[in-house]
């Protein structure tokens, strides 16, 4: 039982950046902008957050910096896709490389540790938060381990990530903004002819994306780890995208998909060095490759008929 709880706790922890990145992608894609660049934004925000947290000793400033970095990336992506009507996929890929190169380049130049930032401590990190009465309930059978062990003790970013799911559902279906957002991803002309600006709406969506993925990146370097290391996003941005497609661009299924991947990663740590019957010790490389293999299986198995927002990936051009 303890083992199960332990794995579940890890699952929640490692799912956090995925959920944030996935929801970030949801806003973008629902508005019609394909965002392959989630990976680069995660990496860039992680870097920004770690650098500022390290320099100022204040993790909240770090978080703001992380969001700031992804805002900049989103702005470039927006410029390329919306204003210059460029290819959104190329833009995303380019931004990923940019993040890859710049983070290590600047990191080495500024801190001289081969791309890593100094270790964060004290106020420079996020720590687990104890939920009210967690200590008192710890001993109670069943509820205790679940409340005090599993649910309590996560960082603020984790709680925000999980709350963001119902919030996103509410925004999408119960607010004016959500209605317009969904419309612009399906048929931007419908909005343009009704007098609304497609450009402004898409930029707003990109801004929300930036905030969420900025939080995700900051989580990586200030909560999950205590510094930035090169390529620390390890493909999570792409996995989040696959989860989004798998979830058919809906918030609650997205949560489920992200938890699934998180669970896989948790099992990866759990099974390291463990001898399984018949197979023996599972090679680390096999465990490492699992999330990526699963992503491919998801895309191969289920996505064939998923219907993306109709206008996704196409620059909006007023026709002649």
């Amino acid at each position, binding site marked *: 039982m303890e083992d199960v709880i332990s794995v579940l706790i890890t699952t929640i922890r490692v799912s956090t950046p995925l959920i944030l990145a996935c929801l970030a992608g949801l806003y973008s894609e629902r508005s019609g902008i394909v965002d*392959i660049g989630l990976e680069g934004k995660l990496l860039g925000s992680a870097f920004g957050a770690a650098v500022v947290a390290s320099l100022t000793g204040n993790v909240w400033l770090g978080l703001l910096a992380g969001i700031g970095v992804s805002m900049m990336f989103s702005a*470039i992506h927006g*410029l*390329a*896709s919306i204003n*210059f*009507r*460029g*290819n*959104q*996929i*190329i*833009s995303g*890929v*380019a*931004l*990923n*490389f*940019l993040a*890859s*190169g*710049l983070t*290590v*380049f*600047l990191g*080495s*130049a500024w801190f001289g540790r081969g*791309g890593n930032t100094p270790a964060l401590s004290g106020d420079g990190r996020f720590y687990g938060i104890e939920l009210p009465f967690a200590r008192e309930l710890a001993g109670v059978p069943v509820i205790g381990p679940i409340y005090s062990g599993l649910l309590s003790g996560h960082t603020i970013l984790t709680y925000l990530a999980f709350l963001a799911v119902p919030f996103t559902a509410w925004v999408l279906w119960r607010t004016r903004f959500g209605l317009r957002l969904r419309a612009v991803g399906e048929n931007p002309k419908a909005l343009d002819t009704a007098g609304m600006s497609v450009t402004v709406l898409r930029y707003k969506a990109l801004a929300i994306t930036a905030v969420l993925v900025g939080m995700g990146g900051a989580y990586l370097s200030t909560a999950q780890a205590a510094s930035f290391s090169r390529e620390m996003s*390890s*493909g999570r941005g*792409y996995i989040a*995208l*696959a989860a989004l*497609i798998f979830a058919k661009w809906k918030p609650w299924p997205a949560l489920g998909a992200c938890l699934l991947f998180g669970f896989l990663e948790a099992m990866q740590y759990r099974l390291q060095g463990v001898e399984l019957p018949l197979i023996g010790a599972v*090679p680390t*490389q*096999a465990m*490492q*490759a699992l999330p*990526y*293999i699963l*992503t*491919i299986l998801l*895309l*191969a*198995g289920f*996505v*064939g*008929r998923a219907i993306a927002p109709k206008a996704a990936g196409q620059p909006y051009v007023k026709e002649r």
Partner: protein
Amino acid sequence: MPLPRWVDVILLPVLNVTLAFIIGGIVVLIVGENPIEAVRIMLYGAFGYGYGFGFTLYYTTNFIFAGLAVAVAFHGGLFNIGGEGQAYVGGLGAILVALAVGGLHWAFALPLIIIASALFAGAWAFIPGYLQAKRGSHVVITTIMMNFIATSMMSYIISRILKPENINSDESARIADVTRVPFLSEWIPLLRNTPVNISFILAVLALIGVYILIWHTKFGYALRTMGHNGTAARYAGMSNARLIMVTMAISGALVGMVAVNDTAGAHGRLILGYVAGTGFVGIAVAFMGKAHPIGVGLSALLFGVLYQGGQELAFTMPAITREMIVTIQALVILFTGAMSNMLRRPVEFVFLAARQKEPDPVAQEKGA
């Protein structure tokens, strides 16, 4: 408004690349170094003497293969981001054959090595191609995933299977000298001590071959049709699924030639992580070169210069690392690929102003 072709094909790309470099230069300034000086050192390092030139050509060879791979796929509307992993797996094919025929003269071994590299790398690219064709899985994500899987898989194979007992570093056994792809220095003394080898000639042949393939074969015509309009391709009786799979395989096979240049040539053995970013450079090269062999060739040369010059720079300006090159790469892709329209308006404006009084034959004819 239609601009003359040379603007589209030459002027805009040159402007876009220049912009990328200017920004790169700004980043160099931020870390406290002099960009002009950096460029001078780089150019000297790349061309200044036979040693530098040989290395430049060696890098260029790799980038030609990687760039052609992306370019071919691009003509079909496909984004092959998996060059890195495909080249890596191609290395497996190269080393297996090279070791198996150990002792065979390169004149006989080389064709076998080429075929094996092409097959292995082609297969690694075929899988995402198949998934896109038959299951609709987006090839961008699947090829990237295949990169990660290749890293893990090859790591296991090299360190657990191929590594000989007596060696400490993660690499395979060495290929016999007589089997290795010969260095050009054997015929051109100026290039001694450089890793540029016969693969360079293969690369130039590949440039010509791809040109013929895309514009002078029926397959190329079908590929371009699909790339522009998949529905029209279906109308014309072309099988999109078959085209996608074959194109990805060809694309993979092309980047697999990197294994011929490196594993069977320069390194003489399969080294962990040997591809070291070549696949990604290929993407930049393809976009900068507008997916045309001439452009790809020139862009590959430019990046070869960047890489070799960069090595030189690393001695004198340690602050500028390999990652700087990656950054410039990214900026090149961004400006020539995604933001290529950014400079279009200003250029159009200039042309419109110049052309104001001329009657337009196209507009007049259109009335019929």
